[in-house]
């Protein structure tokens, strides 16, 4: 039982896009590793274009890898369509960002919730209405809602239905891909509280993908920070947030506003140079070097490999120096 539930090793994902006769190879994910233990919540943070959603899709077999491997419960991804594949589709679930497109507008909520039950033959058909009512109650909705169409529901309500649908088949892992970014602050807090509560009660593992550092901090046991297809830093959430070692993590935390004017005024800002480079033509060596305030020649020559740093791992040649010097000042 020591093996992690999900173990992504050195994932490589390259998209080929053709535009105006020019073929571009977009390196969405490059040698990223991430693991999730049973019942654990792992936060995956990054800005747009970091490859976090692609990595999330690959983690549950919805995105083919161009290199590396994904082990779920110690076994490699089964072939699509095989019996093992069908079992896997029950054991891993995903919730997407946009609650407005997540439910088929031509199906009632009940029909949407029956779909996973039907696909995975969960009990006899006549038990489904009760099961659906139970699921709706579990996520704090009125069981009567089963007869409604999604058009009449608010974003928060729809996202609750999506959570209920993911839970219907009692999965081991749920990938939450930016599940609250389309929602208001108060609704977001409701959804996060709900999923955290369910996670605790049912022991399901979560891979929580978000661009919001505060949100990840609020929910995650462990956190991985991604930039331009690579994992820059990963470790226990408290450690990553309180003693960030990678310059990118530090810059990201320095840029995220804190809802507290006193802390906010004291926050250390590390302004980043330039823009995120083209993922079809990423920088050599360290991907972050073009924007890193500490970049040196070495960073262009050698790709930093993730190395242990305290309880975390950091992919930076100079993290000791950087954290050391700045701790003294």
């Amino acid at each position, binding site marked *: 039982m020591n093996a992690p539930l999900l173990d992504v090793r050195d994932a490589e994902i390259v998209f080929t896009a053709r535009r105006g006769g020019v073929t571009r190879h977009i390196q969405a994910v490059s040698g990223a590793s991430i693991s999730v233990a049973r019942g654990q919540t792992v936060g995956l943070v990054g800005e747009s274009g970091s490859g976090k959603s692609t990595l999330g899709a690959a983690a*549950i077999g*919805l995105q083919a890898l161009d290199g590396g491997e994904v082990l779920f419960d110690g076994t490699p991804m089964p072939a699509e369509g095989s019996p093992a*594949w*069908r079992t896997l*589709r*029950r054991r*891993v*679930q*995903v919730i*997407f*960002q*946009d*609650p*407005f*497109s*997540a*439910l*088929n*507008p*031509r*199906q009632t909520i009940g029909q*949407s919730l029956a*779909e*996973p039950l039907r*696909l*995975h033959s969960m009990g006899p058909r006549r038990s489904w209405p009760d099961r659906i009512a139970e699921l709706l109650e579990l996520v704090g909705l009125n069981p009567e809602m089963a007869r409604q*169409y*999604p*058009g*009449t529901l608010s974003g928060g309500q729809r996202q609750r239905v*999506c959570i209920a*649908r993911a839970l219907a*088949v009692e999965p081991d892992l749920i990938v939450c891909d930016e599940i609250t970014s389309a929602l208001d602050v108060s609704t977001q807090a409701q959804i996060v509280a709900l999923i955290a509560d369910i996670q605790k009660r049912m022991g399901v593992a979560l891979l929580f993908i978000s661009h919001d550092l505060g949100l990840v901090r609020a929910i995650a046991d462990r956190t991985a920070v991604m930039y331009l297809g690579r994992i820059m830093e990963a470790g226990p959430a408290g450690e990553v947030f309180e003693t960030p070692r990678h310059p990118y993590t530090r810059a990201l935390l320095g840029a995220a506003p804190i809802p507290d004017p006193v802390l906010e005024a004291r926050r250390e800002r590390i302004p980043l140079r330039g823009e995120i480079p083209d993922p079809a033509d990423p920088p050599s060596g360290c991907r972050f070097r073009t924007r890193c305030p500490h970049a040196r020649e070495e960073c262009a020559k050698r790709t930093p490999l993730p190395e242990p740093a305290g309880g975390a791992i950091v992919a930076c040649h100079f993290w000791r120096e950087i954290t050391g010097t700045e701790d003294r000042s």
Partner: protein
Amino acid sequence: MSASAPITTRIGRLVPRSPAGIVLTLLGIGVVLVALFPAWFTPYQPNGINARAILQPPSPANPFGTDELGSDVLARIIYGTRLEIAIAMGSVALAALFAVPAGLLAGYRGKTADWILTLIADSILSFPIVLFAVMVVASMGASVGTLIFVLGIVFIPRIFRLVRGQTQVLVEQGFVRGARAMGAGTFDILLRHILPNILGPVLVIVPQLMAVAILIEAGLSFIGLGVQPPQISWGSLLLVSKNYYVNAIWYPLAVGAVTTLASALLVFAGDLAANAINPDRRSG
């Protein structure tokens, strides 16, 4: 709020509310009744010969006058509706029969199937409709069947492109990605998730295509390559009435006006339906 309600519900919601919708719906039902039971709407026979009433101007008994054989023009128009509807609906149905599955396949599978199907569709599309029709009629001979076949073929790419495009959009939607993540098979997804959501947009272009069918039928029949007299369609009546612009202007005028009105109303109905499934265009 209503932005993502089921499309049929939204159309259904609109029709009873907007006066134009009600009128068009009733008119549509009326036209179908005329096509099915022409005798209910006129006391005359379409081919009744009356030597004493040749080319009579409009009168209370013959609101659109009479033709060169003394038949009531209105009666002929009414009896022509049946063939008109058969051609318009038949060709669209024929096209949908092939275009919808092909569009689903191309939009969902992509890759080789997509580019072969798209290539075929683009090729058909690059033939001017009338020329394509002339070519096929020259080869197969003019008949109602040929007309339906030709129109069916030229409508295929138009429906295909729509279905393919809609499918490509839907495939990226959360509910389709979600269904795939849950292990739903291709057939399941196409049938339960994609098909029900493209029916609305397809229905919206049907009236527009029917209007095109009516106009092409009129044009081809006029040059003698469509419906052949004595079969009655509006196009064949336009052909026959060609000789009476000088002596009996009401005859071609009535037939042409009915044809124009019918296709205009179909276009208008299509616009209304498009607004109904895409309300943001109106409300801003």
